[in-house]
Every structure is written in C-alpha cells, then in structure tokens.
C-alpha cells in the first residue's frame, strides 16, 4: 500500500527564521543546542538579538552626539558662560572623545551598570523601573482592549460580507485608521472627562494605590491607542476570514458535514486566521512600547515615551541609551515570542515540518 508510508515526524526541521545570512550562520550553534524547533527558534533569535541591540545603542550614541548642545548646556541654560559649560562638561566626562565615551558606556552596560542620569545623578535603572511599568501597562491594556473588540467585530462582519454589520465595521475601521490617535484622544477627553466627568483627563495612579483608581486613569489613554489597533485588526482578520470562507476547501468540507455557519466561522476559519493576526500583533507590540510618546504626554503618564522625550531634550545620554536598549529588547523579544507562539500553535511547525 503506497499510502501507508508515514512521513517521519522526527525529521530535522527547517528553520523558520532565516531572513539573512546572519541567521543562517547562527543556525548552526542553535542546532547544536536544541532539537525541538521551538528551542532552536528561541536560541537563534536570542543570538540574532545581540547585534541588533548593540547596533541600536551605537547608532543612538552617534545621533545624540550629532545633536547640537550637550547635557551641560541643557543643565545650565542659555545664559551660561562658555567657561561654566566647559567646567561642567569636564565634570560630567563630556569632554572625552566620542568613541572613548561610547566604549566606557558599553563596558559598564555589559556589567549591568547603566550609569546615572546626567540631569540629577539618579541611577538610570531606577528611572527605567518607574517608567517601564507605566508604558507596559498602557500598551498591554491597549492591545487587550483592541483584540477583545476586534475579534468579535471581525467575525460578525465576515459572517455576511457586504452586509450591514460588515459595512458599518469597515466604515468605522477605515475612519479609525485615518484619524491620528491624539485627535481621537482629545475627543475621548472631551466626552468622558469634560462632558460626562466620569474619567480623569490627566494623571497617573500607580497600581500600588489600588487597581480601580489605576485603571480609571489608564482607560482613556489605552482606548486612544487601542482604537487604531482595533481598526487594523478588524480589517486584517475580517479579510482573512472572508478569504478563507470563499476559497478554502476545508471550509466547504465543514459545511458539507452539516456544521452551522457560525461554527464553521469560529471553529474552522477563525482558528486559521489566528496566524495572520499573531504576525501583526507581534510586530506592533515591540514597536509600540516606545511610540506612545504623544499619548503619554497628553495624559501626563510618566512612561517610557515621555521619559525618552525629556532625556533627549536634556541630552541625557545614559538615560536615552537605557531607553533605547529596553525598546530594542522589546522589539526583538516580541518577535521571538511571536515565532515561538507560531511553533506552539501551528501543528505543522510543531511537528517539525515547514508549513506548506
């Protein structure tokens, strides 16, 4: 019987991540370390992350040096004499050559010492420790909110393409994609803080002071960010489901079994759409952690975006560097988690065969 031959599930899998020669180069050590595709993806990605994060710090350092002025000028203000500036520069080690300062920073950073702020001599790790949770909470809330609304909306819209729900959903999401999030934020503030007076317009309440007050402060900024994400996810997911419903034979198979149309949509189509959704969520999650600057500024949230902006304005290189390292790590980390989730969720990768 020719069709009884099984394909061996233990065959060494082809790497899922081979975007360039570097990855191919890193594939070999990864292969030595782990046999499971998930472990190998993880190892390859972590190894790939090293040059990415290092490159980000170096480029940032260069750019910061190209900017006019330095921390001394920023600290002393416009009225300072050149002598005062020179003295402070020397005290802050700003008069050393560029490369020396970078290597000093790099050496310290590798031992875990990210240095102190040039502004107020506070340890950079302490500044990060305050700002990171704020941004992280904001972004996680925004993503959760966006996905929570986008998935049901997309499913309902895809149920009847061109139907009432679909048209409304697509109009709203087209509108949402064309409105910048700060405009939407202003509208939200106008309605919920100024008009209805149910939510605060600005301010941050740490989680330590209670989840309720904390969430109350976070709802508006998170919604402002979530709206654009919701619009994008709805469109992507809806398009993917509609496409499957029209094209895929397994959908016809499910229908031919007598499975109800909602069941077909959710059990069969949505299940496969998770992958395209996962891709964009993963890509955005890493990037979004630093791109919340305007929203954090508007709502007075002491997060990464706001912190980075201040640090750049005061030429506070150690703080800027630390933020950049964290953001680069987030981008790489989010991509890694995405790849791992693929490996966990998609049986074709999980069993060590490349997806067709």
């Amino acid at each position: 019987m020719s069709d009884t031959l099984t394909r061996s599930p233990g065959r060494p899998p082809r790497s899922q991540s081979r975007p360039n020669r570097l990855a191919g180069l890193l594939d070999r050590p990864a292969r030595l370390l782990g046999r499971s595709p998930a472990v190998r993806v993880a190892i390859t990605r972590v190894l790939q992350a090293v040059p990415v994060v290092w490159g980000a710090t170096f480029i940032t350092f260069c750019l910061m040096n190209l900017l006019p002025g330095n921390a001394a000028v920023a600290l002393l203000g416009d009225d300072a004499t050149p002598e005062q500036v020179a003295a402070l520069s020397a005290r802050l080690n700003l008069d050393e050559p560029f490369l020396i300062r970078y290597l000093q920073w790099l050496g310290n950073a590798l031992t875990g010492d990210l240095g102190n702020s040039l502004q107020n001599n506070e340890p950079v790790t302490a500044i990060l420790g305050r700002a990171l949770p704020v941004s992280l909470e904001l972004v996680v809330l925004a993503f959760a909110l966006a996905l929570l609304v986008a998935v049901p909306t997309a499913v309902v819209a895809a149920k009847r393409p061109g139907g009432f729900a679909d048209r409304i959903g697509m109009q709203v999401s087209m509108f949402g994609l064309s409105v910048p999030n700060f405009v939407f934020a202003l509208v939200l503030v106008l309605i919920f803080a100024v008009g209805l007076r149910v939510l605060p317009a600005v301010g941050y309440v740490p989680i330590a002071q209670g989840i309720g007050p904390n969430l109350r402060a976070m709802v508006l900024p998170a919604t402002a960010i979530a709206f654009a994400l919701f619009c994008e996810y709805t469109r992507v997911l809806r398009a993917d489901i509609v496409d499957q419903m029209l094209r895929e034979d397994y959908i016809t198979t499910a229908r031919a079994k007598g499975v109800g149309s909602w069941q077909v949509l959710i059990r069969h189509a949505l299940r496969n759409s998770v992958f395209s959704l996962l891709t964009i969520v993963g890509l955005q999650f890493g990037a979004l952690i630093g791109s919340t600057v305007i929203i954090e500024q508007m709502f007075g949230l002491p997060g990464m975006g706001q912190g980075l902006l201040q640090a750049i304005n005061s030429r506070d290189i150690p703080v800027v560097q630390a933020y950049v390292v964290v953001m680069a790590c987030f981008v790489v980390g989010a991509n890694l988690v995405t790849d791992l989730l693929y490996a966990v969720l998609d049986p074709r990768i999980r069993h060590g065969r490349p997806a067709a």
Partner: protein
Amino acid sequence: MTTQIQPDTATRTADPDAPLLTIENLEVTFRTRDALVHAVRGVDLTVHAGQTLAVIGESGSGKTVTSRAVMGLLPRTATVRGSIRLGERQMVGLGEKELRRCLGREVGMIFQDPARSLNPTMRIGNQLTEAIRVHLPMSRRQARERAVELLAMVRLPAPARRFHEYPHQLSGGMRQRVMIAIALACQPGLLIADEATTALDVTTQAQIMDLLLDLQQRFAMGLVLISHDMGLAASYADQVAVMYAGRVVERAPTRRMIAHVRMPYTRALLDATPRLERPPHAPLPVISGRPPDLRVLDPGCAFAPRCSRSQDRCQHERPELTEREPRHEWACFFPCADDSLPGEDER
C-alpha cells in the same frame, strides 16, 4: 461495527425503486459584475440506491456546480432553479437549518484535493467527531469510538493513533481515506465524489476507488462520481452522463456508452484519453477550440463550433437530450455511426 445508525426514513423510502436523487431541469446562474453566467442550463439526472453515476465533462461543463447545487454549497451569487429531490425532500430553496440537517446525514461529499479539504490546524479525530456529533446525540467518548471505527472502516492503518494526528502527518491517499470517513460518518444514502481521485497517483487512485465501491456495496449507497476522466467512469460507474456547457449531452449505461458512442463530443473525449495501445509519440487527438462562453445563450448546439460533424442546422437549433435508442439518450442531430471505432473518422 458496534454502533448502528438508524437509516434515515426521508432518504430511504419504502419503494426500493424510487430514485435517491432526482434532479429535474436544474438551472444555475451566477451573477458577476457585468453579466449572468449560465453555468448549468437544464440538467436532469437520477441516482438510485446502490447505483454509481459518473458525471463526465471538461472544466466549466457544470458538473461541479451541479454537485454543489445538490449540497446547497453554492456561493451567494448563484441562483438555482429547477428541482433537486433527495429522497422526497426538495433541496432547492431549503432553509439553512433543514439543509444543515440534511448535509452529512443524508448526503456526503468528498473533494478533489485531500491536502486542502482537511483543516490543517485540527486533529483528524476532531474533524471526524465533529461530523458525527453534529447529527448524532453521542457523548465525546462514544463519538471517539465511532470515529476510530470509521477510520478502520476506510482501512486507515493504526486508526487509534491516527486519530490524534494532524492532516500534514498523513499521505495524500490517507487523507482522502479520512475524507471518506468524514463523509460517511453518519451513513448518508448518497455520496458525491467530486474528482475525488484526481489529485492522487494512479495506484492510490485505484485503492481509493476500490474502497469507495466496496463501501457503496456495503451500505447500498448511491454514488455520484464527478470526473473528467472517461477511463475512470468506464471502470467504475453503472451509468455515465456526459456534460457539456451546462447540459447533459449523452447518457447511457456505461457499457452501452463505451460501445456505441453517439454524441461527437463524447467520442472526442474518448479519443483524447491517452491509451497504451497508441503508437509511441503519436500526437494525442485534442478537442480543438475552447468551451463556449457561458455568458452567452446561443440558440444552436453548444458543441457545434468545435464539432467535426456539425452542419448548418446545428448552428440554429439545439438538439434535445432524447432517448433515441433503448436506455441511451443523446443530444445530437448527426450522431456518430455505430460501427465507427474511437478515433476512426479522424484518421
């Protein structure tokens, strides 16, 4: 088999001679942006329990659309007119709920590409138990047992282990076996196989066909084989209906059809089948031209522009499908003569 399923009374009527599937004057049109596509233009077909009907035709002849119309699986842009009776139930215009109750339970279907017709992210077992539990009040456990039985029935090796595997872990032939198991999960009276073996290699194709015929005998099912392959029809079907441009153009019991081809199109199809007896490197006779534009409704015979026997009359008048010899119907004014062997009048 430990689990017995009560035959559905709607499809298996008291009268054993009553056809299982009766299609009368079926017309299917698709709305496109700028035109109406007349994909099926008045098709009559009947299938009896235990009988195999092969519907043969090239792409665009309407054979697949006809089968999808039976299943109510056409896209929203399609309009179906005419009558499709499954047992005593009228399928045209059936509500979604009743249709769903019918699909899988009274009529099952398998498709061309087993690699695409199984959901890649679901285990074989879940796809099978889903088909069972949609219709039968079974617990998860019972459905599982039944599913493993079904996998054994389609002669899938190591069914209990395969139950937990994903489609990509199976070969093409094994996937098609799983598809058959799914289609037969609730023992429907009628099975429609839409090019079910086209994507498989020849050995596997024969195995799958043997399995299908075996199961058909066992359950006294009606079987509709939809194919472009005359050879397949000749080897496995009781009756052959040849379709062209949305119409049945010739229909007869298989043996009669092969021995006494009347319709020039059927003859051309037979000639275009590769044969071992042909001398090597001899050019394969092909049917010149293309199938007609389905947006246009011409008064004449649709095959006339490609037909070597066509005459003036064929352009203006359409021959009806009529029983012109006992149990042999064709739609042609100038049929091929009885004594001509396949390919003879071309040489």
